[in-house]
C-alpha cells in the first residue's frame, strides 16, 4: 500500500486515475480506517486530500455556503452562519459518531462511504445540495442525491473525488431539521432517519418542502409524496398524518441486527413527523 498526500486536486486525481489497484480517499478516515483494520479492503493507494487548497474551508457563495470536502463535523458545527442557514444539515453531520469522530469525520466522506444510513445525507438531499467533483476530465457538479448508487457504492467514476458540497441560499422563512433513531443516545448507526426542509409563506403555509429518509432503502430516499402532503398546509393533523403515511409507504428496508422492516417503516414516519414540526418552528411557523 502507498500513502500519498497531494497538494493539488490535479495531482490527486491523476494518481487516483493512474493507479490500477484499489484506491481510497482519506479525509476524516473514520470509515476507511475501520475497513482497513477489519481487512475488508486492501487498497494499493490511499490519498490524503486534506492538504489540497480549499478543501478545508467553508466559504460564502451566492448567499449559500461552499463546504470543503475535508471539513470535519466539529468545524461545521462551529460555523454559526452556516448553522443558522441549514441547521438540519449541520445537526445531521454532528450526529455522526462521538466527539472524537466529529473531530475527523466529514460530510463528503459520509456521503461517499455509500451507507444508506449515513446521517449527513438525508439533510443534504432535502437541501438539494450539490457536490463539486474533480476528476481526470476536470470539474463537474452533481446533485448529492445522485451520488449514492447502492450500499457501499457511489456513481463517482475512477479518479473522481469530491472537493466541496454547496448548500444554496434560502428564501426567508425557510428551515430544515434532521432526526434519526438509534437504540442508545449516541454511538449508533441510524436505524431510520428523516430530514425535512421547508419554506413558509407569511401566513404560515408551507409553500415548498423536501423530505428525505435514511436507512429505509438501499440509498437515501427523497419522498416527494411526503412533501406534497404538507405543501399548502399549516401542518394540520391530517397533513402530518398524510406525511407519515407517505413516508412509511416509501420505505423498503431490510431486517437486520439493527432493526426490523416493521420497526423501520413505522419509525421513519414518526421521525418525519417530528422533524417537520421542528423545521416548521425553526422557520418561524405558528400553527
Amino acid at each position, binding site marked *: *500500500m502507498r*500513502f500519498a498526500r497531494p497538494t493539488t486536486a490535479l495531482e490527486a486525481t491523476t494518481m487516483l486515475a493512474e493507479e490500477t489497484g484499489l484506491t481510497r480517499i482519506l479525509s476524516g478516515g473514520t470509515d476507511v480506517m475501520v475497513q482497513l483494520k477489519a481487512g475488508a479492503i486492501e487498497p494499493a493507494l490511499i490519498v490524503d486530500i486534506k492538504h489540497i487548497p480549499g478543501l478545508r474551508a467553508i466559504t460564502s457563495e451566492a448567499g449559500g455556503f461552499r463546504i470543503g470536502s475535508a471539513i470535519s463535523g466539529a468545524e461545521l458545527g462551529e460555523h454559526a452562519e452556516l448553522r443558522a442557514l441549514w441547521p438540519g444539515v449541520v445537526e445531521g453531520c454532528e450526529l455522526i459518531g462521538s466527539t472524537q*469522530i466529529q473531530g475527523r469525520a466529514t460530510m463528503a466522506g459520509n456521503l461517499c462511504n455509500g451507507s444508506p444510513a449515513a446521517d449527513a445525507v438525508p439533510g443534504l438531499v432535502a437541501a438539494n445540495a450539490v457536490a463539486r467533483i474533480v476528476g481526470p476530465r476536470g470539474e463537474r457538479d452533481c446533485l448529492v442525491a445522485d451520488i449514492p448508487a447502492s450500499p457501499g457504492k457511489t456513481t463517482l467514476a475512477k479518479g473522481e473525488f469530491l472537493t466541496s458540497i454547496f448548500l444554496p441560499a434560502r428564501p426567508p422563512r425557510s428551515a430544515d431539521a434532521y432526526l434519526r433513531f438509534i437504540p442508545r443516545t449516541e454511538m449508533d448507526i441510524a436505524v431510520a432517519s428523516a430530514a425535512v426542509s421547508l419554506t413558509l409563506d407569511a401566513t404560515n403555509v408551507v409553500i415548498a418542502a423536501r423530505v428525505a429518509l435514511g436507512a429505509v432503502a438501499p440509498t437515501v430516499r427523497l419522498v416527494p409524496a411526503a412533501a406534497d402532503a404538507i405543501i399548502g398546509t399549516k401542518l394540520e393533523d391530517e397533513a402530518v398524518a398524510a406525511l407519515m403515511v407517505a413516508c412509511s409507504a416509501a420505505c423498503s428496508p431490510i431486517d437486520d441486527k439493527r432493526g426490523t422492516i416493521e420497526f423501520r417503516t413505522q419509525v421513519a414516519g414518526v421521525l418525519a413527523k417530528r422533524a417537520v414540526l421542528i423545521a416548521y418552528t425553526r422557520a418561524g411557523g405558528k400553527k
Partner: protein
Amino acid sequence: MKTIHVSTFVNGDAVEFICAPDESLLDVLRNRLGLTGVKEGCGTGDCGACSVTLDGRLVCACLVLGAEAEGAAVGTVEGIADGDTLHPLQQSFIDHAALQCGICTPGILVAAKALLEKNPDPTDTEVRYWLAGNLCRCTGYDKIIHAVQDAAQKMRSA
C-alpha cells in the same frame, strides 16, 4: 510496503518516526514511541480508549494514520501532567474514585481536558454527551461525571 518518515510533535516534543503506510497513529504511539498510556480497546473508533488530540482536536488515534501526523501536534495522556504535578482532572479522578480498572481513564482524561478547554463550565448533560464516545465498563460513569465537574470547578476558581 515502503515505510514513511514522519516528523511530528508529541506532547510538545519534536519526534521523528518511520511507519508503514497503513499503520495507525495508535500503533505508532504504542509500538514505536512507547506511549502505552494510549490504549486500544476496539481499533474501530467505538470505545475512545485511544483518545488523543491532533492539532488540538480530540480524535481516536486508531482512526488516524501515522503518516497523517506529519507536521502535526499530538497530545496524549502522558502529556497532561505538568512534570510531577498532576493536572486537576487527574487529581480529581483519584480523589473521586472515578476509575476502577483504569483502562479507559487515559482516554477519558484526554477527552475531558479537551472539553474543559472548550467549555470550562459544562452541564452534567454536556459532559455526558461529550464523553459518550469513551466507554467505561466499570464505573457506570457516575463518579467520572463528578470528577470532571469538580475539576472544572477547581480550574474555574484557580
